């Protein structure tokens, strides 16, 4: 009898403790951090949105597709990496392909992408960098490698009737160095590059 009473008492203590934790750690803490974010760092807290003129066209942190209605890549835009999120860069469906190193579908996809990227840019398959033919972990990778960006310069310049040197300069000015000079990899943000490109004409 007394052990039942002890057990009931202990659970009742636990329920009250859980209510306190929910109020403080679930609700109050979240609201305080939200308040700090919205007041002090509103740009970041709301998703680092990027505008073209007055229109929000996306987030600087989230990759997006540059394809036509049927999903074909548009040659006048720099192209991002392949994506496994939804139909490609689906903002509500972040995901990698999760295909293993010996997965036949992945091997076929890489072969196909390699041929497509080479033909699309008029280069040999050996020059296609790895990030151009592999899907990222999130499916929302906003970046490509500087190599992949530079590979696309001739095609984009040609499509837009711009001098190649001008587009190359634009890409080079947009290469983000490693954080602090040694963390991570050098990258190019595709949306921001394309935005700058559209302002070029």
């Amino acid at each position: 009898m007394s052990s039942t009473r002890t057990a009931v008492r202990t659970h009742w203590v636990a329920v009250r403790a859980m209510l306190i934790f929910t109020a403080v750690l679930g609700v109050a803490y979240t609201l305080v951090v939200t308040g700090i974010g919205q007041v002090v760092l509103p740009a970041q807290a709301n998703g680092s949105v990027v505008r073209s003129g007055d229109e929000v066209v996306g987030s600087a942190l989230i990759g997006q597709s540059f394809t036509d209605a049927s999903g074909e890549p548009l040659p006048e835009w720099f192209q991002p990496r392949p994506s496994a999120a939804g139909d490609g860069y689906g903002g509500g469906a972040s995901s990698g392909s999760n295909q293993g190193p010996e997965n036949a579908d992945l091997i076929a996809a890489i072969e196909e992408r390699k041929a497509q990227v080479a033909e699309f840019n008029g280069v040999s398959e050996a020059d296609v960098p790895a990030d151009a033919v592999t899907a990222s972990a999130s499916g929302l990778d906003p970046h490509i490698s500087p190599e992949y960006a530079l590979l696309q310069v001739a095609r984009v310049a040609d499509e837009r009737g711009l001098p190649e040197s001008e587009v190359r300069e634009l890409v080079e000015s947009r290469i983000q160095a490693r954080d602090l000079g040694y963390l991570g990899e050098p990258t190019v943000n595709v949306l921001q590059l394309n935005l700058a490109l559209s302002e070029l004409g």
Partner: protein
Amino acid sequence: MDALFAVMQAATLALILALLYRPLGDYMARLYTSDRDWKFERGLYRLIGVDPRSEQSWPAYLRGVLAFSVVGLLFVYVLQRAQAVLPYSLGLPAVPEGLSFNTAASFVANTNWQSYSPELTMGYTVQLAGLAVQNFVSAAVGIAVAVALVRGFARRNSGTIGNFWVDLFRGAFRLLLPLSVIGAIVLLIGGVVQNFNGFTEVTTLAGNTQNLPGGPVASQEVIKLLGTNGGGFFNANSAHPFENPTAWTSLFQNVLMLAIPFALPRTFGRMVGSNKQGYAILAVMATLYLISLFALSALESGGNGTAPELAGGALEGKEARFGIFGSTLFGTTSTLTSTGAVNSMHDSFTALGGMMPMLNMMLGEVAPGGVGSGLYGMLVLAIIAVFIAGLLVGRTPEYLGKKIGPREIKLASLYILVTPTLVLVGTALSFAIPGIREDVESVSIWNPGIHGMSEVLYAFTSASNNNGSAFAGLTANTPWFNTALGVAMLLGRFIPIVLVLALAGSLAAQDKVPATAGTLPTHRPQFVGLLVGVTVIVTALTYFPVLTLGPLAEGLN
């Protein structure tokens, strides 16, 4: 050049952790030994009805842990089932029963295995009132149990090992909460979002539509890592740019995961009255960590396998901003702690590279392990190590002045049997039960062949060791996996806790024996080497056969 940058990144991480070791470890030691309660804490203790100055025997302490966890399980379950009527649910329906059980078990057991895709399943209220709260309190429970075990070593002729409720509240409010607020602000600066905006539809530059997600992410992200929980706000976890936007936030996330587990040996050393004992445990953890990090980084940079060789590098499932080393560093940290967060997709690692996260978890997550669980796991292995040393020289083993007798060895041996049993039995049953085998093979497994077997092995390894990472191609939202993994997570968490608290009680009751010339010194490199060896050999003997069926077969083919 890449190798140099990798070494510099690892050295930066090591330096930050080294700077945190003493202040954070000492802070925790004071926190858990002080008999002074803050004023608001006294109010809270009155509110819940406990006397903060009363000490508990180990069964009473255990009752507190279990009652609190059962209540947490019910809370999270009910919140999910009631999602349809909760505010800020983004129009999402109630979470189905099986998945609700799995998720509740997962977050209460500090595992954060996710059978679901959060964007499509969990509204904001469930995330913050259910999941984020468990991220705090399940971590505080883990540290409390570790501290109780340390008290067992520190005390003599004592019938008690502390007060669970005091340890729980102090861990949550004095340790995790303030660090989380600071960490959340750092993540916000880096670009992690924190809002209640839901999804925003935008027209992209090329004229397509894209749904940008929102949510109170930064507040949850920080405790997901600091409490070695690992459950992402988004499906892609720390690979999602809104959870982990830059290379430096990724390094910061490594710091968050490792800060408390690597500082706890200091707390241990302080509490048992010898900082050298803490350094010895730290050295074992750091040695195993560095070996594992080097191996995974070498394997992924090597990029062996058909797909990586064809692509020109193992970049499938890795983010451009992190690169290979940013991914292997995070993967190593995440699976050697009990976090299970990912910033790259382990399922797409090279075959032998993908074995490393599995091996990390199979070590029992002790290098440095989850918050609390890493320290108590390592101390159990230390008991095994002094026992083996005692057998070799024919003396009664002792550790920190406590005799390691039959009762202690029985408890420690049972401890190291629990998770391997769950992993191997769970994996075997998935393929042995006829009806379930078909379901596993046709519905759950994503990659065909040997790699598919690795997905199942990874799932049970992750669940039983309370890690939570996955070979995420596996469709785990099925009746079999939701149930079996849910049970594995609960047993993998709470059976070891029962054994550790029993051990704590048994040690606390002993007097201390004075060290003699025949006592094995446990603060010297010799013992560090012995303990590293014991940890590796126990794991290798247990898991080598099953690894040959999975990643070894795939990688050496």
